[in-house]
């Protein structure tokens, strides 16, 4: 099986601050990988480089074998992503926004209309599909962001704290959707919620100060450190009672 995501010696400086320090990681096609690390570890920077939002200082990132830096359009056609807390055009409706993003990805006509309806129903926003987004709560925007991610049925999903702003029921529903669609896709999922990562992902990459500290299956890490929480704390320098 080939690698869907590859990072090769990825380094990123913000001025003098070293955010990523030669990160090398390979995510197999179809794997569901959780990216864990404390604040400032480089998780968001990693995902932003992967989505061509920022350029690495050195090193390479590949999506399905395509170099993100040199062929961003081709690489981005393979992904659906939620980065940080995305904002939609507030004076437009969910249908307007999804229609725009769908069309930019080559979807059109009846197929696009049908698919928009499907993803809106999937994230349970059907009663809000024609309401301006300025009236939406943070959790509702996060649901819509997930709908946008799944709209074009991409083979790779990149999610940065997708549960942020959701109420407990929303978190459960989100997990169920991601777990369900993640069965047939490569999932690269950054989160602080260890329990969510444990429930969704079969592999975990732990990073700290821009370096890869561990990359193994969730089961192996739990076996080695007793729990994912202990593994996380030990690897990132925390104390475990």
């Amino acid at each position: 099986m080939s690698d869907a995501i590859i990072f090769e010696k990825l380094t990123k400086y913000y001025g003098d601050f070293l955010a990523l320090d030669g990160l090398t990681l390979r995510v197999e096609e179809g794997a569901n990988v959780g990216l864990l690390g404390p604040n400032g570890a480089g998780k968001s920077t990693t995902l932003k480089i992967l989505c061509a939002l920022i350029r690495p200082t050195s090193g390479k990132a590949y999506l399905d074998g395509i170099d993100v830096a040199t062929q961003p359009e081709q690489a981005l056609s393979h992904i659906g992503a939620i980065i940080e807390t995305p904002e939609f055009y507030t004076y437009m409706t969910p249908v307007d926004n999804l229609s725009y993003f769908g069309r930019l990805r080559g979807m059109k006509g009846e197929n696009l209309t049908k698919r928009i309806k499907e993803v809106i129903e999937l994230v349970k926003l059907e009663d809000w599909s024609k309401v301006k987004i300025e009236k939406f709560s943070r959790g509702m925007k996060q649901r819509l962001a997930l709908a946008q991610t799944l709209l074009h049925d991409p083979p790779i999903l990149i999610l940065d704290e997708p549960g942020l702003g959701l109420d407990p029921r929303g978190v459960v529903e989100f997990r169920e959707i991601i777990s369900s669609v993640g069965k047939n896709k490569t999932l690269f999922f950054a989160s602080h919620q260890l329990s969510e990562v444990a429930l969704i992902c079969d592999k975990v990459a732990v990073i700290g100060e821009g370096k890869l500290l561990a990359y193994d299956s969730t089961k192996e890490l739990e076996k080695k450190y007793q729990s994912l929480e202990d593994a996380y704390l030990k690897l990132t320098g925390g104390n475990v009672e």
Partner: protein
Amino acid sequence: MSDFEKLGIVVQFEFLKHVRRKRLYIILGIALFVEALVLILVPLLMTNGFPKDVLAMAALLTVGPSLAVIGAVFFAGDAIAGEYESKTGFLLFINPIKRVILWTGKYLASFLATAALIVFSYIIIMIALLAIYQQVPVELLKSFGLCLLYGGAVISVTFLFSAISKGSMGATVMTLLFIFVICGILQSVLLATGKPYWFILSSSGDAITAVISDMNRLIASLGIDTSHFGPMMENLKPLDIGLSIWGMIIYLVPCFIASLWISRRRQLS
């Protein structure tokens, strides 16, 4: 899907955004209000009612479309900076589209929205002139063309400020300061000292009116005493419309290209 098809999609959506926003209607309202003000105040303040010269009245009414062009600043101010400031870029930039196509589409949509306002303003002028003078001078068509070109130049300048600004408000304020304050001061100084000033953006905008009636003819038609204006009137030569067109092009093309170049390099961190 070709880049051209993607460009069409961006233009459609961005234009729809302008239509859905209140600012389009606010600018339209202001332009209409100004036209109405001219139509009410001119006969009230002049002893003989409307000026006899249709060109003088047409020139006075071009204040409406000129204001409509300034509306371009409000359409284009957030085109680039807004995507970074409001974080909508996190959704938009992850789509498989070249940034150059994205910004060009936004530029064209801003231009279309501005052009719609300009067309509307000129329709009002035509109706007013037909009602008062039963004629529409052909110079109005030239003025319309220059107004569209001025709109394109103003949008280009705004795009440049939007590309370098962190926020859309900053881009909008900087553009307005540039056009009204910096250009205004430079134009006054150059005019007072008898030096050429065709390359100042605000003076190029004056061509919208000057192509209908030059300043001396307009002042004469309105019966204004120019003796107290001093050397300013002596130095006031009719605007060279050809040079004014170049004056707009030197802002339109380089500013747009510079904004594309800067925006392509900008990162969303």
